[in-house]
C-alpha cells in the first residue's frame, strides 16, 4: 500500500491537495483537501447590501462574475426588486460568455495536458496532422505548413531547454495514448485557444467594463446604458456589432475546434468513459432566461436532480434540503460537529487541527480540509456541466438530447457513458455549443429591443435604502461554469447582517461527512488505475474533469444567522 500525495494540484484555481491510497496499481481510497482559507465572511457584515456583489465577486477571479450575479440576485430577492428585461438579457450574456470562455480555457489550458503529450508532438509528420485536422473539421488553420510552424515553435522551446510552462510535465508517461500527429494538433489548438479566450471575453469588457471582475451590476439592473441614437450610450449599434462578431467567432471555434478536438481525443481514451463516475447523484438549480429565485419552469437549463444514475426520472429540487457538515472540516459548530446545518443557519468558525506545517501527510482519519461538506437530503451531489446536461437530458430537453445522442453516436457510446471522467469533459463541450448559440439569440434580442426604443436597464424603485423594510432575507442562485452556486443574505437596518455562500466546488471537492460518505472527487477516484505511483497522472485526469475551483469552494462567508420562513 502506498500513500500518494499531489500538492499542489496545478492547472486549477486555488489550493487543492489530493491524497490517495494505491494498492496494486489501483486507487483504493482518496481524500480531497482545500488548503487555503481567507475568511472574507466577516467583512461583508455591516456593508451596504447594494455593493455586496462587488465584494462577493472577489471570491473568485477565474469564475469571475458568477458570485456578483448570485449576490445581486440574492439582494434583489430579499428586497423584492424586479429587474427590466434588458438587464436580465445583459446579465445572461455576461454569464454565458463566462461559461463558454471558462469551458474553453478548462479544456485546453487546464485539462488537455493530462491527455496530450507536448513533447511527442515533435515526432509528428505535419502533413499527417493536416490530414487529421481536415478529417475532423472545416477549421481553416489546417495546413501542413501551419502545423510545421507550430512544431518549430515547440522545438525551439525544447532545444533551448527552457520549456517554460511545459517544463517538468509527465511527457513520455505510458498513460499518454495520442499519436504524435494528434498531439501536435492539440498543441496548435492550445496556443490558438489562448488567443481566442483573450478576444472572446472582450464581451465582458463591453458589458462589464473589464474582465476579470466586471463592474456594471446594479441592484435593480445594470449600469450599461442602452440607446440607439446616443453614441456615448454603453450599448449602441456599434457595440452590438462587436458583440455579434465576438459571439460568432467563438461559435465557430467551439464548433470547428473545441468540440471536434474533444471527440477526437476522447476516441483515443475509450476506457476513460468507464472510470471516474463516483457519486452518481447529479443536481442543478437551473438557470438562464428566467429569474432563478422564482419559477424554475422558464429555464433554458432546467432545475432538478438525477439520483443514482437513473435517467428515467428527474426529481424536484427544494433548496430547503441543502445542508452542510463540518465533521471532517477544520471548523466547529457550537452544538457539535456531527450535525448538519442549512446555509441560512450556517456557522463558520475556523479551528485548524491539522498537522503543523511543514507536514508530509494530513491526518485523514480526523478533520482534513478547509472545505465543508454540502449534502442534499444527506446525500452528496455532483454539480456542474455534466449534472446540467444529465438533468436536461432526463427532462426530455430535445436540444440536449439530440446533441448528446448524435455526438456520443460518433464514439459508439450510449448516454450512460456520460457517468465518467470523459463524460464530464464531453458534457462541458456540448454545453459550450448550446450556450454559444443562446448567446447569439440574446444579443439579437438586445438589438431588437434597442431598435424598438426599449432601452430600460434599471429599476430604481428600491435604490434608496429608506424604501427598505427593517429586515429582509433572500437568496440568489446561478448555474456557474462549475455548477450550482447559492448565495443567502440577511439584511437588518439597511446593512448586511449575515451572508452565506455554497459554491459548486464545495459540493464536488468537499470531504467526508458525519456518515463517512465520501465527497464526489473522493468517490470518483476509487479504482483509478495508476501506472506509476511516482507520477499519478491518472488521478489528475479525474480531478481535473471536475474543473476544480478552490477559492470558491472554501467556505468564505460566515453567517450566524437565524432560520427564516421566507426561504422555502
Amino acid at each position, binding site marked *: 500500500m502506498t500513500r500518494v*500525495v499531489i*500538492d*499542489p*494540484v*496545478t*492547472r*486549477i484555481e*486555488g*489550493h487543492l491537495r489530493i491524497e490517495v491510497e494505491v494498492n496494486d496499481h489501483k486507487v483504493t481510497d482518496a481524500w480531497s483537501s482545500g*488548503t487555503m*482559507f481567507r*475568511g*472574507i465572511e*466577516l467583512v461583508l*457584515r455591516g456593508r451596504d447590501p447594494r455593493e455586496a456583489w462587488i*465584494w462577493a465577486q*472577489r471570491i*473568485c*477571479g*477565474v469564475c469571475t462574475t458568477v458570485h456578483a450575479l448570485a449576490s445581486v440576485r440574492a439582494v434583489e430577492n430579499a428586497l423584492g426588486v424586479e429587474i427590466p428585461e434588458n438587464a436580465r438579457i445583459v446579465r445572461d450574456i455576461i454569464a454565458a460568455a463566462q461559461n463558454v470562455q471558462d469551458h474553453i480555457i478548462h479544456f485546453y489550458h*487546464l485539462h488537455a495536458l493530462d491527455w496530450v503529450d*507536448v513533447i511527442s508532438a515533435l515526432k509528428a509528420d505535419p502533413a499527417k496532422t493536416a490530414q487529421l485536422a481536415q478529417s475532423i473539421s472545416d477549421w481553416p488553420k489546417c495546413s501542413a505548413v501551419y502545423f510545421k*510552424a507550430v512544431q518549430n515553435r515547440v522545438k*525551439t*522551446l525544447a532545444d*533551448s531547454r*527552457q520549456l*517554460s*510552462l511545459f*517544463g*517538468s*510535465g*509527465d511527457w513520455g508517461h505510458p498513460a499518454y495514448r495520442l499519436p504524435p500527429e494528434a498531439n501536435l494538433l492539440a498543441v496548435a489548438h492550445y*496556443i490558438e485557444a489562448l*488567443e481566442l*479566450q*483573450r*478576444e472572446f*471575453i*472582450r464581451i465582458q*469588457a*463591453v458589458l*462589464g*467594463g*473589464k*474582465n*476579470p*471582475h466586471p463592474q*456594471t*451590476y446594479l441592484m435593480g439592473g445594470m*449600469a450599461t*446604458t442602452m440607446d440607439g441614437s*446616443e453614441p456615448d*450610450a454603453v450599448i449602441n449599434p456599434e457595440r452590438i456589432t462587436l458583440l455579434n462578431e465576438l459571439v460568432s467567432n467563438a461559435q465557430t471555434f467551439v464548433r470547428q475546434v473545441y468540440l471536434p478536438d474533444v471527440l477526437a481525443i476522447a476516441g483515443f481514451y475509450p476506457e476513460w468513459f468507464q472510470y471516474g463516475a463516483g457519486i452518481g447523484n447529479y443536481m442543478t438549480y437551473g438557470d438562464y432566461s428566467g429569474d432563478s429565485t422564482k419559477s424554475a419552469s422558464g429555464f433554458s437549463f432546467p432545475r432538478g436532480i438525477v439520483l443514482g444514475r437513473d435517467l428515467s426520472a428527474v426529481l424536484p429540487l427544494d433548496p430547503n434540503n441543502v445542508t452542510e457538515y463540518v465533521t471532517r472540516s477544520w471548523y466547529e459548530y457550537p452544538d457539535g460537529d456531527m450535525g448538519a446545518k442549512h446555509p441560512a443557519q450556517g456557522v463558520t468558525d475556523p479551528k485548524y487541527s491539522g*498537522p503543523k*506545517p*511543514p507536514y508530509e501527510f494530513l491526518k485523514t482519519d480526523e478533520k482534513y480540509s478547509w472545505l465543508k461538506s454540502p449534502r442534499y437530503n444527506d446525500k452528496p451531489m455532483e454539480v456542474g456541466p455534466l449534472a446540467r446536461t444529465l438533468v436536461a437530458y432526463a427532462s426530455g430537453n430535445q436540444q440536449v438530447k439530440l446533441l448528446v445522442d448524435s455526438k456520443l453516436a460518433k464514439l459508439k457510446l450510449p448516454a450512460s457513458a456520460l457517468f465518467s471522467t470523459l463524460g464530464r469533459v464531453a458534457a462541458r463541450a456540448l454545453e459550450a455549443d448550446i450556450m454559444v448559440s443562446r448567446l447569439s439569440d440574446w444579443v439579437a434580442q438586445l438589438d431588437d429591443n434597442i431598435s424598438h426604443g426599449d*432601452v*430600460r436597464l434599471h429599476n430604481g424603485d428600491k435604490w434608496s435604502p429608506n424604501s427598505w423594510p427593517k429586515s429582509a432575507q433572500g437568496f440568489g442562485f446561478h448555474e456557474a461554469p462549475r455548477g450550482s452556486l447559492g448565495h443567502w443574505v440577511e439584511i437588518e437596518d439597511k446593512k448586511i447582517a449575515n451572508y452565506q455562500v455554497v459554491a459548486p466546488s464545495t459540493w464536488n471537492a468537499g470531504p467526508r461527512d458525519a456518515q463517512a460518505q465520501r465527497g464526489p472527487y473522493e468517490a470518483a477516484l476509487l479504482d483509478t488505475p495508476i501506472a506509476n505511483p511516482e507520477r499519478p497522472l491518472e488521478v489528475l485526469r479525474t480531478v481535473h474533469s471536475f474543473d476544480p475551483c478552490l*477559492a470558491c469552494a472554501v467556505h468564505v462567508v460566515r453567517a450566524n444567522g437565524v432560520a427564516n420562513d421566507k426561504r422555502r
Partner: protein
Amino acid sequence: MHAMTHQHSLAPSSGLESMIPVDKSVLELCRSRGISRRRFLEFCTAVTTTLALPSSYAEVIATALSQKKKPVLVWLEFQDCAGNTESMLRTSHPTVEDLVLESFSWEYHETIMAAYGKAAESALQRVVREEKGRYIVVVEGAIPTADGGVYCTIGGRTALDIAQEVCGSAAAIIAVGACAWDGGLVRSGPNPTGALGLQGAVPGLHVVNLPGCPHNSANIAAVLVHYLTFGEMPALDPLNRPLFAYGDIIHDQCERRAHYDAGRFAEEWDDEGARKGWCLYKMGCKGPEANLNCPTVQWNGGTSWPVKAGHGCIACASPRFWDTKSPFYDRLPHPAGFGVDVTVSEIGWTVVGAVAVATAAHGITSIVRDRLHSNAETTKIREKPGPTEEQ
C-alpha cells in the same frame, strides 16, 4: 515606510546577461516561429505607449529585446482568487502566448503549469537554487501570518515560508493585485487569518507593486518588457507603484471629465444623463481619488473600462481601498477639482525624485528616468494614505 530604499529595488542590469544561455536571440526566436519583424515592432510600439516613453523608443525596445536572453520567471499564488492570473492571460501586447512561452521562461505558475505535485515543487526549488539572484518572482494573493500560517499551505509548507525563500533569492519582485500589495480584501475587516501584503509579511523586500483588483495586464506586460529592455524596473511612486501607470488621477484622464467640468451629471441610474455618458461623480464614482491608467490603456485590449461601461470607479488601486473607499455608492464629500491639488513634493514624498537622482545615469535609461522624473514632479496625488501600514 520603505520608500527611501527604492533605488535598491532596481535590479542590477548585469543580471540579465548572466541568465541561462540560450542559443538564439529573441528576434531570431520570433523569426523561427514565423513572426515578422513588423509584428514584433507593433508590439514594442504598444508597450512604449503604455510606458509613456517617446515613440522613438519602440526601436530601442525592439533592439534590446532581440538581444536579451530569456529570463526565468516564477509566479506564486497564496490567498488569492487567481483574478490577477486571469488578467495576465488577457494580455495582448505582448500576447499572452508570447509572454508565457517565449518572452520569459515561465517556470512556475500553479494555475497554468504542466507539472504538478512533487515535480512542480522541484521546478520551483530548482529555480531558487540554480537561478539565485537572477529570476523574477511575481506574487499574487495575501499571506496569512496568524496561527503559524495554517490558513494557506502548498505542498505542506506555509505561504510565508515559501514567500520568504523564493522572494529572498529573486532579482526582482512584483506584487500583482490589491491582496499581494497591502492584503486587499483578505486583510480588510477583522482579518481572522492575519493576512498581510507581501511587503508587510516579508519585511525588507524591495517590491514593485501593481495594485488593482485585479491589476491590468497591460501594466504587467509593460513592466516586464521594461525589465527585459533596461534590466531594471521602471521608476516608482512613494507606494512602490510604477509611475507610468499610477502617476495620474483617473478623474484627470477620464473621458467624462468634460461633462464634470460643465456640470453635467447622471443623477440617477439609467437616466438621460447616464445614457448620454455624463459624469458619474454623483453616483459615487471614486475616480477623483484614484490613481491608475484605466482611462488611457483601458481593459482587455483597449476595449473599455468601468466608467466607460457606465459604473463608477471603486479606486481599486488605492491603499486599503476596501476599507477606505466603501461605501462605493456614496458621493465623495469634497468635489474634486475644487479641492487642493497636491503635488508629490508638496506632500513631502520626495522619494520619486530621489529614485531618479540616485540611480546612476548611463545610456538610454537616464533619458527614460528623466522623462518619468519630470512626470513625477507634476503628479497629483489625491489619494489619502490608508490605515497605518505594517511596520
